């Protein structure tokens, strides 16, 4: 298991009440599952307050970077000690 640094960016901090923490994970998917398990309920609570019953995943509404590279551009999703995982809310509004 690798010790991975997680950072929530922008409104995630207000929604989820946390900015940085460390977790143990082998892969990006494992890390994001842990993030969802720990903070997904807060996101759902926030959505329900806004009248949105739809279940949405934090990672599904985010751009996720590992060491500044988007996970869709990574061939290898395995993680190592000290990797930095930025979870940035995805915006496309104009």
């Amino acid at each position, binding site marked *: 298991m690798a010790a991975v640094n997680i950072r929530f960016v922008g409104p995630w901090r207000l929604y989820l009440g946390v900015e940085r923490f460390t977790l143990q994970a082998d892969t990006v998917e494992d890390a994001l599952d842990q993030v969802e398990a720990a903070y997904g309920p807060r996101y759902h609570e926030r959505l329900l307050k*806004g009248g949105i019953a739809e279940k949405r995943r934090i990672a599904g509404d985010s*751009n996720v970077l590992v060491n500044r590279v988007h996970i869709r551009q990574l061939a290898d999703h395995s993680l190592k000690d000290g990797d930095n995982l930025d979870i940035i809310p995805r915006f496309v509004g104009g």
Partner: protein
Amino acid sequence: MDAKGSAAKLIRRYSKRAVSGSGQKVRVISLEDSRAVASRSGLTPLQVEIICLENGVVPMRYLRNMGTVGMEGQLKLLRSTVAVCGAGGLGGTVIELLARQGVGHLVIIDNGRFVENNLNRQIMSGEDVLRRSKVKVAAGRVGRINSAVVVKALSAYIDNSSVDGLLKGSDLVVDALDSLATRLLVEAACRRLKVPFVHGAIAGFSGQVMTVLPGDKGLASIYGRGPGQDAHGLETITGNPPTTPAVIAAWEVQEVVKLITGTGTLVRNRLLFLDFADGSLEEISLL
């Protein structure tokens, strides 16, 4: 004497001494006199403004621009063509500010019409223009702000077959879109046309800005690859209040001014992420 020469002579005659915002002594010409020169010389208002600056005379409307961009910068702006993709929340303010800044040619692209839920944030919208074409309303407003600006208002849908034709001839492109798939299309066209692309996007109290030059990794570094994926973001939950598009649009316009005039440092290969609720500004390096 040709039209340009006679215009220059008239401009020198009409111009007066003034002091710029930065305390510099300059010669200026009023809007009324500038119009008179255009009328007597048969030149367009834009041509007259360019001749003014070439002869060291500042059109009064740009006097407060001198301390930041100077005469050379203002000339470059007047000679430039900027395409604005989208005339909604971001686009409305982008267009307004580009017109006031004095960008000579604007290409405004949007196939939408104003509806009531635009009124909270889209600066070009108003109760009197509901159901009217966004680009036509925007062109009219630009004309009232700065009649020297030449506007091409294109009520068009941006897709694979239209994008290159819509953007060809522009010196740079501003992203004021609300669709990731269309953003990726426009960014790809900018690479082909070898022009800069200024990205902005908003959701709720947050927004982001980045300038992409041809050859940069660009939007793929933020959104990953794959047009058509993740068509929406957090804005489907948060909506968009009045303030966020105004701030992000202003930052996008500042990027445009820097690109054209060659001043300052571009927000390039890094994402500026602003959160107004949190009162924070983060820079996410993408290199």
